């Protein structure tokens, strides 16, 4: 298959800038209530260019969902900033934030859980339109029908309840609802993980089309590299709350430079049975983010031939390796 075509709309103009973001969750355990801190996101900086799709990939527990939710201030970061077109989201009052929500939206992983079971799906899409005063009454209803058409749902479905729709249809409702407020930025939180494989591709194509049509910027959270391969312009790989590698998609899939990225790529199925592939199997589970390893967070599972004491002691910073590729590995260029 072909490499993703670079979208002409992607510019170097930054829409959302995540700056040294940290999110900690308190963890209480045992009778003596020893308080530990789980650092779900640890000092992450990431800038989303206007019009791009940035894939954010990691295993469960890597902090990718937390980062996505901090990016639209659904949860308050412990430290660091998120700038949206020059506005620091943390400075918005509750009221201003509600209004600001029009500009940034979220599509949930579980399309069933994210729709109110007692609300008709048409009403679920119409509600934000009316609350934000985009349109009212019959014009709002016309807008809902238009949105349904755009996401490939028959407008007659407006009077259905979520349980009367299939998973893929529900996810289309979730997408229509996110688009109802005409956002600029959408966080897609594993939008196809809960769907049948046959439906996944349709929804991915839909998301791609919508991006083009509405000049949207996506932060596409996924748990494996295969999902974002054909849609992302750039990909960030997260491990234990940190970004291990950030690269243009075309570069990352051809020349992954971080051992973790290599392992993830080798785990993805290749649709060519004759292809020679070297399967890298990581040993063990990811360490607990409550007690992350010293030095490089990945050193406990790393298979890099040059791995040494430096990896245990000194944490590698994310640094540019080649054009359009940054990696947090001391030996990224010494394979």
């Amino acid at each position, binding site marked *: 298959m072909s490499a993703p075509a670079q979208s002409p709309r992607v510019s170097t103009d930054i829409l959302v800038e995540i700056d040294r973001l940290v999110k900690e969750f308190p963890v209480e355990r045992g009778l003596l209530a020893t308080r530990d801190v789980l650092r779900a996101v640890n000092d992450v900086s990431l800038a989303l260019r206007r019009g791009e799709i940035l894939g954010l990939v990691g295993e469960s527990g890597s902090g990718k969902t937390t980062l996505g939710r901090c990016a639209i201030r659904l949860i308050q970061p412990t430290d660091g900033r998120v700038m949206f077109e020059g506005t620091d989201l943390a400075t918005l009052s509750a009221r201003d934030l509600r209004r600001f929500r029009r500009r940034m939206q979220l599509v949930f992983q579980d399309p069933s859980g*994210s729709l*109110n079971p007692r609300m008709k799906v048409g009403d679920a899409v119409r509600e934000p339109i009316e*609350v934000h005063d985009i349109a009212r009454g019959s014009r709002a209803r016309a807008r809902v029908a238009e949105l349904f058409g755009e996401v490939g749902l028959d407008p007659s479905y407006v009077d259905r309840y979520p349980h009367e729709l299939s998973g893929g249809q529900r996810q289309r409702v979730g997408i229509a609802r996110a688009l109802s407020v005409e956002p600029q930025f959408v966080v897609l939180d594993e939008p196809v993980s809960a769907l049948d494989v046959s439906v996944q591709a349709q929804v991915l194509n839909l998301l791609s089309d919508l991006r083009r049509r509405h000049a949207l910027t996506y932060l596409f959270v996924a748990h494996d590299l295969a999902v974002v391969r054909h849609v992302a312009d750039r990909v960030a790989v997260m491990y234990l709350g940190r970004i291990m590698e950030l690269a243009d998609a075309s570069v990352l899939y051809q020349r992954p430079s971080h051992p973790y990225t290599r392992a993830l790529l080798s785990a993805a199925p290749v649709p060519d049975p004759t292809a020679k592939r070297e399967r890298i199997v990581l040993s063990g589970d990811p360490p607990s983010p409550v007690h992350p390893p010293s030095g490089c967070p990945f050193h406990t599972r790393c298979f890099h031939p040059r791995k040494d004491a430096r990896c245990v002691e000194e944490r590698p910073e994310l640094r540019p390796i080649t054009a359009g590729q940054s990696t947090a590995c001391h030996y990224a260029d010494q394979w």
Partner: protein
Amino acid sequence: MNRRVRAGLLLLAVLFASAALAPAISRHSPVDQPDVVRLQYAPPSWNHPLGTDFFSRDVLSRTLYGARISLSIACLSVLLSVTVGTMVGLGAGFAGSAVDAVLMRLVDAGLAIPRIFLLLVIAALWPRFSVTALILVLGLTSWFGTSRLVRAEVLSVRNREYVTASRVLGLGSSRIALRHVLPNVVAPILVAATLGVGNMILIEAGLSYLGFGVPQPTASLGNMIRDGQDALLRAPWVAITPGVFIIVTVLAFSVLSDGLRQASDPRSA
């Protein structure tokens, strides 16, 4: 519709209709005393199908008119109690932290006092209740349990993703509470309310029996039983008729409540 729901509703329809149509079913007034000497404790007859009481009043009429009073009191006070309980529970569960802590300690205090004593104290301080006052007193002393129930439901519903989704969409808190949380906690409230009506009939009967409920000569199911206890052997119909009415009504409400609980459980659907 679930079989129990249907049975409960059917039975209640009969009971409510007989109370509502009391004047059509029984020709006698519930308070007329036609002949206190000859018709005292008259056994069931053609003219008085369920006999008469000490004052020669018609027991059938008194039961039907008493049922009107008792059912109205029970339904309205449960309505009041469920409204207050739902508002408090929704507020506590949705607002969380300080509001929740204050409201729930208040509820703890309310639940710690046995309701019948609370009612007796109020009755002692305020000797003659009008029916309206009785509804207020019963309603305002019985919402504690409901608020607990609603709060627990709200706590589980408010973490559902569709509530998060509403927040992402920039909807206001009161809108989220009323449009997205409340409709999803209605089922258990309905079940509790139905059961509550049956209980309330018993409490009102108990209060009236103790002489603190509906004042004479107005009939209520409770004060009729009290009237009948002096002649339980001589004229058992005086106490048994309202007693049976209470039993059947409470039974009907609990069958309905049980059916509603079954029907609202998604696993049974």
